[in-house]
């Protein structure tokens, strides 16, 4: 598979949006991103949208320029609470992406408390550096209700 070539500024917008989420627990508005990138607000808006399009699992609240999700995080509360080194400030985009949060916070403990859609009780997973340290209950499973091949990852249906 040949690598794609993505504009350098788009790659930077993608990474800085994710780093902001890692630090603050929410995505940056494009005006905040403009200050980080040293670009005009209009250019930052353009770059953030291009970065979302180039990545996977990144999108904006319907008909707005507010970031809703930037995988593996959600910028709005979900049923997937993420606690990093004891601080519950983040939300996972979905249950499975929550299991990928560990990769953007190396050497830190990630605790996922995800509310089961059937019984509303929690599934807890603790990870560090990609390794699963603990799961409660041990019978916990992950599931996607729509075919992954549908490519419909940015649609609500893929989360149900």
């Amino acid at each position, binding site marked *: *598979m*040949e*690598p*794609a*070539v*993505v504009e350098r500024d*788009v*790659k*930077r917008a*993608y*990474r800085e949006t*994710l*780093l902001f989420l890692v630090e603050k627990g929410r995505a940056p508005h494009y005006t905040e991103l403009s200050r980080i990138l040293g670009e005009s607000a209009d250019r930052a808006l353009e770059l953030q949208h291009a*970065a979302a399009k*180039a*990545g*996977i699992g990144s999108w904006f609240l319907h008909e707005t320029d507010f970031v809703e999700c930037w*995988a*593996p995080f959600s910028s709005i509360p979900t*049923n*997937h609470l993420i606690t990093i080194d004891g601080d519950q400030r983040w939300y996972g985009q*979905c*249950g*499975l*992406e*929550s*299991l*990928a949060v560990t*990769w*953007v916070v190396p050497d830190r403990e990630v605790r*996922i408390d*995800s509310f*089961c*859609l*059937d*019984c509303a*009780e929690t*599934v807890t*997973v603790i*990870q560090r550096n*990609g390794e*699963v340290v603990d*799961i409660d*209950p041990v*019978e*916990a*499973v*992950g*599931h*996607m*209700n*729509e*075919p*992954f*091949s549908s490519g419909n990852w940015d649609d609500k249906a*893929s*989360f*149900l």
Partner: protein
Amino acid sequence: MNLFRSEEHVTRWSFYNPDSHQSIMPAKDWAYALGAGVFSRRLEPDYLDNIEPYFEEFYERLAELGRAGGFWR
């Protein structure tokens, strides 16, 4: 894409799609699959250039877990 307390909780969930049964895997197996580059290398400066090859790693890991076919790609 959700975490459930057990397979039984998935299949009795009101919105469960029976065609999706093959996606039910232990959370630990999903964590292994989510270690593929497409999910684990997001902070690399050139990540966006490499999404497609990194996606291949995901499919390879799913195949190791016995998950292949039209549901996945």
